[in-house]
């Protein structure tokens, strides 16, 4: 056989016989493609719009109708949110907490008097909506404002296309102006509102003649949109680096865990695991030593990166104690992940493939690639197993989300739990016989 063909045949045979390599060449790309396909196709029609909660403080017919319009928007995914008698927090506080936790991108609050103001569009104050958006989602926040304004204008458009409604509105406004307004305002508004009455009559006659060319909106501002600061500390000025540093750090943590996980396999393939195995040291101590080195690296990496962020980009934590708590919990967690990576394969190639695949999946479902508010709900549910999600939440909570100690406990406890579970599983599954 030609040497080139012989070489090619040998390499292909080798690939086919290496099941792990074969899996990553042929099966993994298919799984990857299907996974992303499901995400971007909205998982069978599920909305993938911006995830929000609507807080209706007005609770009028008008506000309910407006909330319904928001729910009907394809650009929004409105999460059900109602009074909870067992919860001491107000609806607004609960909504702000959901935003701070990253559960939703924003809350839309219909303020008291919303329905009344909307019903009397040509008089008094305009309807007020408050948007409390996650400062890390500024792009979505801008989109959200546009969507809300569009819904408000569509309400006005509906009014202009309904002669009875417009006539009723203009007559009420006319009475109010004649009774309360100053002479100057009366001079401007009375002819205008009277003409609206005539316009409604004309519109009605057009409709009766079968002309449905419709009407258009006016120059009024039907809604006032206010912005609420969802962070506890209103003095806190959010910067993009406060978002990018936790994200960047999480990728660094993944790399560190991967490198240490791989080092177990390298010990095995280079023969040094045998020396470790025959030393008069318990196997648990060997694993603990490795884990300690990994933990030290993770803590040093986190501290160094955040210190650099503080010095160079003014990324300063709301609470140093909370940040220390987050870093320790994150260190524990990623040590556990490292142990799982270490037992994911027996060769460097296998661990290289499987380890990165696991980490990529974790990043994907944990919000390392796709922001959580954009995720399909199934993905967000699955994402609770991802250390990326909890690492980001703990870091952001300590840096700029203004978490209380109680709020910090949840992500930190989950991170520590993942770490402990990963370590125990890894230690149990670690194949010492491979040191033979």
């Amino acid at each position, binding site marked *: 056989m030609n040497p080139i063909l012989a070489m090619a045949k040998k390499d292909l045979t080798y690939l086919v016989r290496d099941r792990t390599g074969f899996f990553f060449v042929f099966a993994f790309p298919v799984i990857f493609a299907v996974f992303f396909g499901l995400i971007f196709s909205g998982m069978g029609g599920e909305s993938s719009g911006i995830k929000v909660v609507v807080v209706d403080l007005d609770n009028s017919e008008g506000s309910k109708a407006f909330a319904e319009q928001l729910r009907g928007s394809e650009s929004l995914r409105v999460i059900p949110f109602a009074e909870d008698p067992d919860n001491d927090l107000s609806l607004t506080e609960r909504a702000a907490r959901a935003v701070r936790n990253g559960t939703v991108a924003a809350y839309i609050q219909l303020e008291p008097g919303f329905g009344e103001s909307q019903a009397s569009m040509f008089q008094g104050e305009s309807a007020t909506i408050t948007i409390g958006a996650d400062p890390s989602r500024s792009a979505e926040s801008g989109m959200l404002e546009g969507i809300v304004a569009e819904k408000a204008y569509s309400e006005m458009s509906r009014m202009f296309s309904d002669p009875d409604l417009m006539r009723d509105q203009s007559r009420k406004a006319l009475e109010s102006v004649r009774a309360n307004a100053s002479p100057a305002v009366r001079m401007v508004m009375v002819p205008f509102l009277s003409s609206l009455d005539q316009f409604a009559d004309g519109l009605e006659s057009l409709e009766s003649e079968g002309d449905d060319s419709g009407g258009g909106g006016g120059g009024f501002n039907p809604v006032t949109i206010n912005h609420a600061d969802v962070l506890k500390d209103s003095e806190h000025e959010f910067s993009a680096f406060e978002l990018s540093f936790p994200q960047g750090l999480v990728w660094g943590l993944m790399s560190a865990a991967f490198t240490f996980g791989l080092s177990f396999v390298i010990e095995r393939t280079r*023969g040094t695991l045998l*020396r470790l195995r*025959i030393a008069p040291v318990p196997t648990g101590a060997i694993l603990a030593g490795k884990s300690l080195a990994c933990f030290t690296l993770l803590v040093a990496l986190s501290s160094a990166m955040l210190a650099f962020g503080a010095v160079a980009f003014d990324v300063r934590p709301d609470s140093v104690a909370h940040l220390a708590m987050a870093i320790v919990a994150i260190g524990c967690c990623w040590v556990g992940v490292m142990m799982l990576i270490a037992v994911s394969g027996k060769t460097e190639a296998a661990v290289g493939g499987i380890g990165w695949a696991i980490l990529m999946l974790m990043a994907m479902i944990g919000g390392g690639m796709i922001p959580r508010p954009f995720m399909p709900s199934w993905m967000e549910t699955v994402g609770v197993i991802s250390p990326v999600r909890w690492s980001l939440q703990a870091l952001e909570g300590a840096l700029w989300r203004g978490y209380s100690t109680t709020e910090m406990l949840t992500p930190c406890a989950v991170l520590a739990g993942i770490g402990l579970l990963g370590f125990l599983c890894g230690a149990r599954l670690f194949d010492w*016989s491979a040191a033979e």
Partner: protein
Amino acid sequence: MPTLTLDSLCKSFGSLRAVDGVSLEIRPGECFGLLGPNGAGKSTTIAMIMGVLRPDSGSVTLEGAGDTSAAQARRAIGLAPQALALYDELSAQENLEFFGRLYGVTGAALNKRVDELLRFVDLHDRRRSRVKTYSGGMKRRLNLAAGLVHDPDILLCDEPTVGVDPQSRNAIFDIVESLKAGGKTVLYTTHYMEEAQRLCDRVAIIDHGRILAIDRVDSLIRDHGGQSEVVFTRRGHTEITERTDEPLATIRTIVAHDDIERLHIRRPSLEAVFLNLTGRTLRD
């Protein structure tokens, strides 16, 4: 100095019987050779001695320490594995210090021991160089030193000269001979009969997991090596080979004639012992 005893050791991998009833005793201060071809079961036997592999049956005991998987026994045994077991990115000194600490050697004692060992294996000048910059022979010597860092009573050398040049091989022989002279017990596995013949006091011939013979080298040759050969040439004739149990008597008879041009004795070797015991050569 304790005695290491292997009693009816058996180990199978699936249907392959790798070690089949190996029994032997390695006495204090001797260099014991385990001679056999590749795949004979030498490394598997070493792994069971080190407690890394659990035997299917049989036992390994170290006098005074019991089972060799116990920490006390592990401290008494050092290993120079067949595959180089070193950290390439560390220096020789760092490697030895690390392995020493695993055995509880610390502080000044560790520094002294590492320094001694580096001189012993002739790597002192390169002690701060990373191992990845070493030649194969230097790595082999360091691999041996790593097995000695805790000053064990017994050193297991598993094919320590595989893949090294003749000069490095001689250096390793010198190291093993120095260890013997220093009273260490050495178990030396090899498939090179000349190494076993040169270094070992006693040799076990192993094949297909079974011990075929154990004795001193000269006794093995006497008992299993077959006859010596006296090879001579008479003037104007071709070379003649005469097999004999009494080579001196045979030579006397031959030299009674005055037309002998050349004469030498070919004594049997361990190669011949192996051939006679197994019906094939060591390198088959």
